[in-house]
């Protein structure tokens, strides 16, 4: 049975005046339904480029992307938006500052106007109804990010592409949003690609991990196997830095 989402030998280079940067070289991945694929790497590793390439926000030089086995390479966000949605790092600016939240969520329904469904989703992501009639500026980062999830679900998208979605949040809010994602995954309602620079966070949330460096995937596999038995030095270095900053579980 074909994977829910798959990428085969993806290539992308940026030409900026004289400088040519190899953003993606021969990257492949797959995602199955109900699974969260974590992509971890430092800035410039190409993890965001990969996500944008999948979403159709930038054109690939080479390689193909498939949804349920069907090739959708070259589609623009207008078309890919039918089955996948992007969640951005800066939650507040992912909503039009002049419109109330309800209108922005309604907009992603592709013509569908289902008030009840919106209320249901807002409570699913743990928010109060009255927030719907407010503008993004009066919501916190955490609240906006939950609204973004509600909006993605309202568009009946199968896949969420999360680009450093919790990096701008404070630690406590980040923990709450991660908990929400874990609950959604448990109910089988969530299949997502989760990009982050924080390997500890990815280890808590994702079933499989891809470690990226300078545009290539240096290591890939089940989360626990990669963390317990890293084969590539770079992964070891990432894990060592994470351990140097880790806080042991304190006895309750």
């Amino acid at each position, binding site marked *: 049975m074909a994977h829910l989402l798959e990428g085969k030998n993806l290539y992308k280079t940026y030409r900026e005046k004289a400088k040519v940067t190899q953003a993606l070289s021969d990257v492949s991945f797959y995602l199955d339904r109900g699974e969260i694929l974590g992509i971890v790497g430092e800035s410039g590793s190409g993890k965001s480029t990969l996500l944008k390439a999948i979403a159709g926000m930038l054109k690939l030089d080479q390689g193909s992307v498939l949804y349920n086995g069907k090739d959708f390479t070259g589609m623009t966000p207008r078309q890919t938006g039918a089955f996948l949605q992007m969640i951005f790092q800066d939650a507040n600016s992912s909503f039009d500052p002049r419109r109330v939240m309800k209108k922005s969520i309604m907009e992603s329904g592709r013509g569908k106007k289902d008030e009840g469904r919106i209320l249901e989703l807002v409570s699913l992501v743990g928010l109060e109804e009255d927030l719907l009639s407010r503008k993004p500026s009066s919501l916190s980062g955490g609240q906006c990010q939950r609204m973004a999830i509600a909006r993605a679900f309202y568009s009946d998208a199968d896949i969420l592409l999360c680009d450093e979605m919790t990096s701008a949040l*404070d*630690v*406590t809010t980040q923990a709450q949003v991660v908990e929400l994602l874990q609950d959604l995954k448990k109910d089988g309602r969530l299949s997502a690609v989760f990009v982050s*620079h924080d*390997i500890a966070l990815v280890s808590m949330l994702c079933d499989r991990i891809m470690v990226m460096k300078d545009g290539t995937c240096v290591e890939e596999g089940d989360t626990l196997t990669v963390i317990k038995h890293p084969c590539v030095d770079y992964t070891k270095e*990432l894990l060592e830095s994470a351990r*140097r900053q*880790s*806080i042991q579980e*304190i006895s309750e």
Partner: protein
Amino acid sequence: MAERLLDIKDLWVAYEEIEAVKGACLYVEKGEVLCIVGESGSGKSTLIRAITGSSMITVKGSILLEGEDLVPMKKRERQKLLGTKIGLIQQNPAGAFNPIRTFDKQFRETLKSHDILFDNEKLDQLFVTLGLKDTQGILKSRPYEMSGGMNQRIAIAAAMLMDPELLLCDEITSALDVTTAIAVTDELLRLKNEKGTTIILVTHNLGIAANIADKIAIMSKGEVIEFGSADQVLYDPQREYTRNLLRDVPKLIEK
């Protein structure tokens, strides 16, 4: 009881009408690393600004640097302390220097402001301790030509130029990658061990604090929620807020 290099007593700091720091009490002993941990808006950076002095804030209470109170000090007197007694490093790695003028000119300006002769030999030695090779090459280049990690190391060199006893670091790792951040904190540790520099590091990242701090102060909404030795705060926190913070920090799942 080791001698307190910096002692902050009942400090209140406000921007026009907004109270940013409410009655903060904390201190750091000579040769120690104090980490001030808090979310954005907790007042931690305002505390640093109160120490270095700024026209944008009104300060009440006292900040004793080796017994001398900085709060009533006039701008001119405080300016003499900055650079010589207190070194400052900011979050934006490229923010320490004028991006379009050479490091050499700017290092000379800093030294000339304190009537200190430019000593190439001493600078070279300082660069080496901070893991910076090719001192002359760096001095001739301009900040906009350098990476974030490099700029931050040169900013540390600039702060350590005149051997200050106290080094204030305001979120110096948050603009850097994880691996570079750890490397920069290692360099701070080397400064503490080799030169006995006292360091105050402000960060939102509890992990960085756990890795480097002797003392930790947790701040939230302008108040110092908890203040004690690193072990005491990390393993036996008294306050609910600290316990939640420790619970919510992402942990590497290894089993």
